[in-house]
């Protein structure tokens, strides 16, 4: 019997850049508003410089994709936006990051992280029920108040926001770790949305998921950009092409090129960007 090879998603080769239309149907954001600004930020782990002099705007109403090969500093830059880099003892940072004009260094880190929430590469729900995962975030620090009944509406709202409510509405007491990978990741997004953040950071949120779950989450991300600024780190150029409005290409800690997605993918200004996008390295 003749076996046909499975269909392959090809990255465009040299000479055939990613210049097709983005696959999503959502219209481009009407009027992006700048929420955060990264100004000449450098971050080092001990003597090793991970991010070198990066400046960027982060706007509500658009999805900003940080792309680049492994170790180029894109995750470090993302983590610095809500000061998670501070958890690494050796990390040092220069330059300023502002949120609505206020230097993030002046915020209490816990207050900042409720305005700028993050979703990680690995789905990491807490080992408790779906309800409690969201309720934990809504409660103040380690308190038990407010009680379950008072939180019910807000928990459901967050789950609905992340497009998960319909699937699990009948059993919010289900252990979160028994959900499928895609559901777990959407629960993590719901958790990040529960505190009504102004900026949502996503660190390769789909890399551990199957294509179908990825599609669901990509549609969700595109939908959410009307309400908040979204920054996504991705290895997957196709994904960046599908969902991003702006793209920042980083290489060896430096911001090589920043611009609208159509321009960066269609007509990159820099040779390194062109090489990376065409698959010459990465």
């Amino acid at each position, binding site marked *: 019997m003749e076996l046909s090879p499975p269909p392959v998603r090809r990255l465009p080769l040299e000479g055939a850049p990613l210049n097709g239309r983005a696959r999503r149907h959502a219209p481009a954001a009407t009027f992006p508003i700048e929420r955060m600004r990264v100004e000449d930020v450098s971050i080092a782990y001990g003597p090793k410089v991970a991010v070198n002099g990066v400046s960027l705007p982060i706007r509500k109403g658009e999805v900003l994709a940080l792309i680049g090969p492994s170790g180029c500093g894109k995750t470090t830059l993302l983590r610095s936006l*809500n000061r*998670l880099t501070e*958890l690494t003892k050796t990390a040092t940072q220069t330059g300023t990051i502002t949120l609505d004009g206020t230097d993030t260094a002046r915020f209490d880190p*816990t*207050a*900042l*992280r*409720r305005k700028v*929430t*993050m979703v*990680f*590469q*690995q*789905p*990491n729900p*807490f*080992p*408790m029920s779906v309800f409690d995962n969201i309720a*934990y*975030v809504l409660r103040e*620090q*380690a308190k038990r108040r407010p009680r379950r009944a008072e939180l019910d509406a807000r928990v459901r709202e967050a789950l609905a926001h992340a497009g998960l409510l319909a699937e699990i509405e009948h059993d919010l007491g289900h*252990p979160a*770790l028994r959900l499928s*990978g895609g559901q*777990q990741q959407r629960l*993590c997004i719901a*958790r*990040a949305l*529960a*505190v009504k953040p102004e900026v949502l950071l996503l660190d390769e949120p789909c890399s*551990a998921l199957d294509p179908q779950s990825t599609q669901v989450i990509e549609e969700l991300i595109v939908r959410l950009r009307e309400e908040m600024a979204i920054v996504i780190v991705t290895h997957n150029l196709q994904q960046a092409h599908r969902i991003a409005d702006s793209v920042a290409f980083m290489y060896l800690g430096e911001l090589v090129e920043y611009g609208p997605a159509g321009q960066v993918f269609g007509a990159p200004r820099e040779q390194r960007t062109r090489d990376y996008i065409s698959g010459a390295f990465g």
Partner: protein
Amino acid sequence: MAAAVETPAVAELELSAPWRLRDRAGLAFAWLLGLLFCAIAAAIVIYLLTQGLRYVRPNLFVTHPAVGFSESETGGFLDPLIGTFAVGVMAMAIALPAGVGIGVWLSEYGRPFALARAAESTIEMIAGTPSIVLALFGTLIFQSGALGFLSRTSNGVVFGRSFFAAATMLSFVALPLVVASTREGLQAIPGHVREASYAVGKTRAATTRRILLPTARPSVITGAMLGFGRVIGYTAIIVVLLGSTLRLDAADSTPLLGALRGTGSTLTTYIFQNAPTGEGNQPTKAYAAAFVLLMVVLALNIGAGVAGSRGKAHRWS
């Protein structure tokens, strides 16, 4: 086809290699030691099981021990049984919160670094200290005038032997086990779970209280059970610090406090007393008590195993 011809030749070469025999001998030796170990453990349990079943009578559990020369005169081991559980519960009431606290601090904070290392080696040192040394140190502390309220005092002389004294020193025996299992449970939680909590604006304390400790609970329970089992198996500390009196001997007439300030014994000292070499010399009673003690410790160990395996139920991808 060529590959099919070559394969047996390679296998033959490996079989005839000189290290193969030594490897086999080593493996056989390891097996032998393993079986020997199992056989010894089984022998202890089976011997005590048969002896115990022969001598355990229900009324032993409900009669007070007494001084006498024959089996019918010396009563049962009600008081040592109560003493065993009292000492175990009291020691764990100290060791569990302290051990969990130290475990959390070492695993989640560990600052300043030098203090954390010092605490670590202190705990290792406590784990390695002979119990009689702990007992001796205990008398030194509990015979001081300031702690006189924890034991019997007559004419200004502090007796220094009480449930409080014994349980306090026994808590040091359980502490290393509780610390180790708490740390183990916390360290099994991946770092990205902590980060997920920090990333939604939770403090380290809130994360520890609401996420990490509940997740590590099976490990903590395992440690508590092992600690309890260890505590109730100690003899020297009981002889020196609990007085090893045959019956519970309250210091005064205050209901509970008086008894806890007083002296008593546990199953271990009861066995020690009644062993063929002991003062009481009632071997049948000693076997019965040993059987009961062994059963309690085995049950605790099995319970610890069950609690530990339940903790492995949830895992992150």
